[in-house]
């Protein structure tokens, strides 16, 4: 489970940044008093325009950034008090395929498995399962620099899932991918849901959100302006597509609906 309570992330602005943003304020809130919960076995989707605060929120959940205010609990652990325990439980994947060019898929997956302290036998089983499912075996001995974007994203998925995390955090996972590779990620998310994992992902692709998510939150300029189940959302915006409803909500500044 993921629980956010009045979470904020404040950045101090330099004089240069104040000038660029045309503001006299000495600081800015990238995320401002955001609260929501993600429960196991459900897919939570975070929507918002570029710069809304989605990535900042996901990074705070993944302990990459520290919240300035508020509380985040991930799998029963506080992200500030026990960040290493939180990171043991999570799998984090971003849209940009961030891998090591001079290593092979096998070596990368081994590295992250070792960082998680995985047992050797279990690792081999998980690796074999993931590589088979994602068709990585055919290029597992090639270096990352020689692989296509789609192949790299598959390796990223394997890397993030090798330790069988109970909580999965995806930040625009299908961004820039071809249809077939994007489909494999959607299938993975569905599989994670069936396995009872807690899943939170951000996306710009409304069709994916429509297909996958059980709970929905919209962030705009750091503020949570909408949060509800997908079922309630569809009933509230019955005559509109998800895209149209999203645009309306962002324009109006939204209304908070607790999940």
């Amino acid at each position, binding site marked *: 489970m993921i629980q956010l309570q009045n979470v904020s992330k404040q950045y101090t602005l330099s004089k240069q940044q104040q000038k660029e943003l045309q503001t006299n304020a000495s600081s800015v809130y990238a995320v401002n008093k955001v609260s929501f919960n993600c429960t196991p076995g459900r897919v939570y989707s975070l929507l918002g325009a570029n710069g809304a605060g989605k990535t900042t929120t996901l990074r705070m959940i993944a302990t990459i950034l520290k919240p300035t205010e508020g509380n985040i609990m991930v799998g029963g652990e506080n992200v500030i008090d026990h960040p*290493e325990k939180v990171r043991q439980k999570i799998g984090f994947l971003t849209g940009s395929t961030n891998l090591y060019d001079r290593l092979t898929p096998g070596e990368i997956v081994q590295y992250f498995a070792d960082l998680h302290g995985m047992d050797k036998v279990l690792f081999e089983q998980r690796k074999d399962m993931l590589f088979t499912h994602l068709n990585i075996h055919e290029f597992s001995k090639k270096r990352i620099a020689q692989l296509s974007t789609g192949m790299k994203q598959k390796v990223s998925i394997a890397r993030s899932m090798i330790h069988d995390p109970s909580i999965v955090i995806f930040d625009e996972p299908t961004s820039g991918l071809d249809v077939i590779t994007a489909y494999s990620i959607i299938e993975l998310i569905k599989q994670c849901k069936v396995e009872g994992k807690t899943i939170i992902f951000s996306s710009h692709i409304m069709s994916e959100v429509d297909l996958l998510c059980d709970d929905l939150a919209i962030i705009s300029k750091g503020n949570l302006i909408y949060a509800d189940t997908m079922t309630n959302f569809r009933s509230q915006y019955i005559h509109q597509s998800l895209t149209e409803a999203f645009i309306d909500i962002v324009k109006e500044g939204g209304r908070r609906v607790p999940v």
Partner: protein
Amino acid sequence: MNTILTVLKKELKDTLRDKRTLISAIIIPALIIPVLLIGVTKLQSSLMKKEGDKQLKIALIGNTENFKKQMEDPGFKMFTNYKIDDAKSAVAKDSLDAILEFQPDFFANVDELKSGKMNLYYKSTNLMLYSRVSEKLEAIKSQILEERIKTLNISKETLTPFNVNKVDISTAKEVLGKTIGGFLPYIFIIFCFTACMYPAIDLITGEKEKGTMETLLSSPASRFQILIGKMLTITIVGLSAALMTIVGMVVGLKFLPNIPADFLATINDMVSAKFIIMLFAMLIPLSIFFAGILSATVIRAKSFKEAQTMVTPMMFVIIIPAMLAMIPGVMLNWQTAFIPILNIALATKEIIAGTINMAMYAAIVLSLIGFALLAAFVSYRQFSKESMVLK
């Protein structure tokens, strides 16, 4: 500890697959020193021989027919038809090598057992010219002196109140320490730092730029463990470069042409377990120091190029203390023992010469460890800041 070793293992594997690191840390230090030593020595010998065999064109100005006969030598071609200004112009244009201008009363003074005066005009850029011409002139002078001694009926000893017999009691080790002892640390310090530069940029700024740092930060490894793993990798690469430089230097010295036997024996003695241990006890903290200051610097860069721009000027800061150690008169004492880089260079000289003060050596090692820990701490403070580790 396991996590640090996991990070170290992966970073080493990744780094050693990079051709630029292999070239800068292993190949260049191991090859360039022996190639330079042997190549430059051979080239120098060849140039000196060429210069020595060259026939020098010398103009004699004044009434010089007799002198011309005395100067006769296959290595010299004499010209007596120049006026002084034309001859100077010819030397400037390299169509003449030298001018011997005899003062008008030269020959009269010499005949009257007095001192004659002549001017030798030449260019100092012409290697060996002065030594060749003055050697010939000295021979003529000695001959004239012999004749005068006979004429005056006095003995040679009368003209030589005393002789000084030079006896050098410095050992071959001390001589070696003075000669290569200053040069060797300069080279291995530079190579150690240069070898650390690229992995530091690649493992820190490179990861930030590529976005892999974010992925690594979401793993169970703490920032401290990640940083230590990376710093150890940078340190190992730097140490390898220093080691290869020393190996290259020893190999180069052993294969130098015409090397005296006792010099060769001293080089063999130098490469002992004691020398290696003492040197590495200083090199290890120095490499950690380099890894720390480079990490703390490159973490501030947003791109590979920016990081390169930041670390290049650091090279000049490192060179200065290494060069200072080569200056005669700069000695290892209780002040210089605490200046990093300078202390290791001076200590290496003393270790090679076999004259190191062990108390001072201990102080040097401890001070280097102190600087290494400080650099690592500063690096960790930088690495802990969110704005530093993310794009």
